[in-house]
């Protein structure tokens, strides 16, 4: 099921893009970038919906009715939750809408990672798995093996720029890509954080938590796993930032210290 609906299509799309770019230096890296753009284009409406939801949540913080509810039912948690749900319903807001793109990201990340490893086929068994994953319409014999080099990286291995000295916890060298992944993830998370003046607002607190944990987690992934995955992360983050910017929903002030509170004052 997972292979049929996620791994095989992902792998074949990657190979198909690679076949179009064959001959270009770093073709597999470009394939991952184009694949990410494709995924972003498909999930654009979903992300747009999430942005809309985040904006609605932001506006809700300044809503008098909302603030009155918070004050009135501060001591009655159940009643407060009921009233909050009523307001969400009335205003057509999904309080968990902002989490959905992140949740959807996980199967894509896992699927893409498996597809990259499968497409690069670093072992005999991996090559055998790849052989049975390829759709007959692709003339794969001419494509295989894929060239895993992209810029200074081997996309099938963790990235690192060699250091002139040994560092035990950095066996692959200086992790440039992992840092770029962490920074771009942080920026993207911060840009979409709803501004709030309410210290008890759970959505804002959740977003705040995500903006700390996600860069660390994705940075760890980039440090540990094949660098092809890092290329996906960085491309996806940059596209996300671009989307927020062009739709005018990027909260640039959030990048400044205390910017979240400052924005809420507006």
């Amino acid at each position, binding site marked *: 099921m997972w292979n049929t609906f996620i791994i095989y299509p992902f792998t074949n799309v990657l190979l198909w893009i690679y076949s179009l770019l064959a001959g270009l230096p770093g073709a597999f890296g470009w394939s991952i970038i184009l694949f990410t753009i494709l995924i972003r284009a498909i999930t654009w409406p979903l992300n747009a919906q999430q942005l809309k939801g985040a904006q609605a949540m932001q506006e809700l913080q300044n809503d008098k009715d909302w603030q009155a509810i918070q004050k009135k039912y501060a001591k009655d*948690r159940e009643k407060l939750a009921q009233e909050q749900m009523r307001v969400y319903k009335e205003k057509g807001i999904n309080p968990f809408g902002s989490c959905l793109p992140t949740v959807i990201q996980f199967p894509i990340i*896992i699927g893409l990672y498996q597809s990259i490893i499968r497409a690069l086929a670093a072992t005999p*068994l991996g090559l*055998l798995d790849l052989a049975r994953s390829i759709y007959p319409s692709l003339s794969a014999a001419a494509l*295989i093996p894929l060239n895993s080099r992209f810029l200074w990286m081997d996309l099938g291995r963790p990235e690192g720029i060699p250091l002139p000295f040994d560092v035990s916890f950095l066996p692959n060298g200086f992790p440039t890509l992992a840092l770029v992944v962490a920074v771009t993830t942080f920026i993207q998370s911060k840009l979409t954080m709803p501004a709030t003046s309410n210290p008890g607002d*759970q959505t804002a607190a959740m977003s705040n*938590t995500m903006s700390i944990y996600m860069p660390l987690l994705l940075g760890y*992934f980039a440090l540990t796993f094949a660098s092809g995955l890092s290329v996906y992360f960085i491309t996806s983050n940059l596209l996300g930032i671009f989307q927020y910017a062009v739709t005018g929903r990027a909260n640039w002030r959030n990048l400044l210290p205390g910017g979240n509170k400052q924005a809420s004052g507006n």
Partner: protein
Amino acid sequence: MILYLRRNDQSMKSKKIYLLFAMVLGALLLSGCSRAGFSNSWPGLTTDGEIAYLAAGQHVYAIRLSDGSEIWRYPSKATSSLLFIAKPVITPDGMILLGSAGSDHRLVAIDPTRINVETNAPEETWIFSGAADRWIAAPLILGDKVFAPNADGHLYVLSLGDDLTTKTAEQKIELGGALWAQPASDGRLVYIPTMNHYLYAVDPESYEFAWPALNLGGAIPGSPLVTPEGELFLGSFASEVVRITPATGKMDPFISTQGWVWDSPTLVEDTLYFGDLDGYFYAVRVSGERLWSIQPDGPVVGSPLAMSDYVVFVTESGTVYAVDPEGKIVWQHEAGGQIYTSPVTGSDRLLVAPMNAEFLLAALDTNGNRVWTFKPEN
């Protein structure tokens, strides 16, 4: 207010725990994927007629053919950096060459006559650590030289004539593309297939290319067959087997196949036997006359094994087949798991090494009956 804050705080904590749980789950899933790629490849198997040497992941086992008992294992304790999948190779002076496909890219020669009494593992005679990638293919011994193909795209030539315990490459020949197949030789040239579709012919003395590399149109994970008449036969992912005349470097189509051809054909008298990944098994005369083909029950990866009256081949479905020259199945044995490793024979035993079975090695008699199985005790 305090109660509200406490409840709110608890709610936040539980959400953070869920979030962390999801992230850790994701990390574990990814970790699982990456591990699966490197440690799970089929074993390499060889025998000297009395002992089987099985390269099966973190250990290489020496197994007595008479009863399937373990004699020793190398290394004595498993380490995550050493993984063995390449077929062990026995040198003329009795050393065993082992290449690691783990993060430690060592090619090591061990001496099975020098067993460490504390670890019960053979001592290392020499080590070569000059390769940049994994050893997936077995090296070729030619005279006093080792021709070792590495996944970094280089053929390393080492000398067996010195007493160095740390070897350096006498020659490093860049071929481009990963090398997954054991080179073959007719004594005059060394033939090296590469995964980037080319076959190279190198003079073992001057290291010069005998002729321009031949493009087979698909990856070549298997070794060429060198016939007594001096011809080469080689299959590839271009779904065909080609015939090559070494004197001129001329390549001619021999036979088209249904699927990709992985390992080398086996010659019995004037007939070539080989399988493909679509599960077909072929018998074709050297003249090019197609005799027959059968499609038993799964992809055929390993090379067939010639026995006295029949040919044995194995399938991914875990079955061992014995077929006679007419293509009739003489016997079949359900070994279990998946079998990709080429079967070998010694001391009237037929050895098969499945993956994902309850054992690592099984010995069959000449009628396909199981004699013993080998499963490491720990």
